[in-house]
């Protein structure tokens, strides 16, 4: 993400700066190198993976074999993890975005008692690291009997204080009060004016929040780790972790090659989404950074 922002800035500058080019060049290498390593490693058999130079191809080109092994290993559980992840992301990140838009808009456009308190709580929510809440959340969910169910992953990801804050500031700026006033005068209900008028205006901010939540949910690891025990419910992150841990288990099957290939397959969808939506991401980020 950093890379995109910096590149955006460079384009707008009229003067060329050697230092800046150099810095972005270094940044580029820094971000791309691990990716290159991952792509090259995914083409290797396990023996080559451990036995040949990391930044070039191995003796055998095993990419397709690796991909097919990844999808067939342990009765094809990898495919199940892909579907789980997509499900968690669609429901979790989608729901979080919708909730953030509704709440952010509401807080920006309606004056009511306790608005400042809500503001303080939301800011406080951003400040608390999710890791600190993990164990209390686990105990609470356990009491409700929700651990080891898909809800244990979805419910925590439905709440996004940062997304809410972003939608709040964005709504304040992007939706003129005049439009809403005239809609009210014309007799439109509040929900109608939100969905028909405000939502289209909020689109860039909405996409930004969606992307944030998407990345967050797609990569979420710790919450599923403590909540889920049943491998059939794992998202990709946790599944790959469990495969990697087999190397630490006596009698476990060492499958570094599949972990690598699985990791590559895991980041492809995210990369695609980013390439498609990066324009919104940039403008949304900028909106969040300057508007208070």
């Amino acid at each position, binding site marked *: 993400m950093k890379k995109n922002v910096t590149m955006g800035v460079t384009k707008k500058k009229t003067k060329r700066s050697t230092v800046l080019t150099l810095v972005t060049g270094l940044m580029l290498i820094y971000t791309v190198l691990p990716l290159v390593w991952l792509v090259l490693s995914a083409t290797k058999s396990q023996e080559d993976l*451990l*036995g040949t130079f990391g930044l070039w191809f191995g003796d055998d080109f095993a990419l397709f074999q690796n991909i097919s092994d990844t999808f067939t290993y342990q009765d094809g559980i990898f495919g199940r993890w892909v579907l789980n992840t997509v499900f968690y992301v669609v429901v979790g990140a989608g729901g979080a975005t919708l909730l953030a838009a509704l709440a952010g808009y509401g807080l920006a456009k309606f004056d009511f008692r306790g608005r400042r308190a809500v503001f303080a709580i939301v800011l406080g929510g951003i400040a608390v690291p999710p890791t600190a809440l993990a164990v209390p959340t686990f105990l609470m969910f356990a009491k409700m009997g929700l651990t080891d169910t898909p809800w244990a992953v979805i419910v925590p990801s439905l709440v996004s204080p940062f997304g809410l804050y972003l939608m709040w500031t964005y709504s304040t700026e992007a939706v003129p009060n005049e439009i809403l006033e005239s809609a009210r005068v014309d007799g439109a209900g509040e929900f109608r004016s939100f969905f028909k008028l405000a939502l289209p205006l909020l689109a860039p901010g909405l996409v930004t929040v969606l992307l944030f939540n998407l990345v967050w949910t797609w990569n979420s690891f710790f919450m599923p780790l403590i909540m889920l*025990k*049943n491998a059939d419910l794992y998202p990709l992150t946790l599944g790959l972790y469990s495969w990697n841990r087999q*190397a630490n*288990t006596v*009698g*476990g099957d060492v499958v570094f090659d599949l972990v690598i290939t699985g990791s590559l397959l895991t980041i492809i969808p995210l990369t695609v989404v980013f390439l498609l939506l990066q324009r919104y991401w940039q403008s949304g980020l900028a909106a969040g950074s300057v508007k208070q």
Partner: protein
Amino acid sequence: MTIIRRRALLGAALSITLLASATACSSSDDPDTGAGGGTVSEADVAAALEAGGNLKVWAWDTTITKVAADFQVKYPKVKVELVNAGTGNDQYTALLNAIQAGTGVPDVAQIEYYALPQFALNKSVAELDGYGAAGLDGKFTPGTWNAVHAGGKIYGLPIDSGPMALFYNKEVFDKHQIAVPTTWEEYAAAAEKLHKADPKAYITSDSGDAGFTTSLIWQAGGKPYTVSGTDVTVNFADAGSSKFATQWQKLIDAKLLSPVVGWTDEWYKGLGDGTIATLVTGAWMPSNLESGAKAANGKWRVAPMPQWESGAKATAENGGSSLTVPAAGANKALAYAFVKYAAVEEGAKTRVDAGAFPATTAELNATEFKNKEFPYFGGQKVNEVLAESAGQVVSGWSYLPFQVYANSIYGDTVGKAYIGQGNLTDGLKAWQDASVKYGQEQGFTVK
């Protein structure tokens, strides 16, 4: 089966200790979760099998899969749900979390020997004497049978064991004309000769590992931990501990140990390409070499563990685990039936056939087991060496009732000696002090 000896996931270890102490408190206020041995009898176990029911089993050992399947065929009324809740520490964290929350506690849980006293002491796992476990005396090797006891009571049944042996890369040894060491003196000499001949090669990798350190002290006759109820002593000043500290310090000082961390991809790479030439480790190692270091197929061999006294025959255990019945489980009689099936009945043989190293004397002494030739080890009858080691384990060892915590702070104390800060003797002293302090905080009488 086992594993551990990884300093990573400090966070997990930390939350374990926090929760462990919390559990210790809550269970003492709440005696009815402790389920004493008197409430369930052998007849109840048989009746439970008859009645059937559902069992949730937490185990990371891959050989349990087949055992669970066979068990359900034999007892169709029982449904077993096998869950891999993580290996070692990961699973203990999950287990303590579940016990703490009071829901989601499995009926059966795999626990390593070094961690078992901790779970036994705070009554997280049920005492099994009354279930019929007391009658199994003699079925298991003395080392593993001792390991599932705490305060004279049985808290689990052994499912595997790790009598130690010297695994070495014969090709590397032959190439540099190094004789297989029989004593630790010879081992140090071999380390020096090898590293001189090939600066990239090391005799072994050791960046500091609590399990390995305690196992070597164990072999040297040291008894740093003594436990009697809540009276605990920690003393790393005995003869066995200092034998280890002196000898191993020589290897550290001469930089003859590879700093590669165990169980990483780099480690497997070293085992495969000959830059890590030996491993002194538990008998469970062969299957991991076979799957993780394929490049060295045919090159490794197994020899008896190097000795502290020339001509001696003393070994120690490294790793190994048991199946336990968590006290909060809903159907403990049925759970015990499964544990027994997996540990001593048909399951024991099934697991050995799948590559596990047995804890039962019957399987250990079976001709078929001893005569099995391992192609990975150039056709060597590896189990002969390993089974011999099982019979030579020094008796009288015990772990602390808070060993999981103690091992988690090993890196901050003894581990420093490996990076040149102080020496092993100082490190062991620091480990001792920190363990004593923690033990006192937890309400133990520690000396």
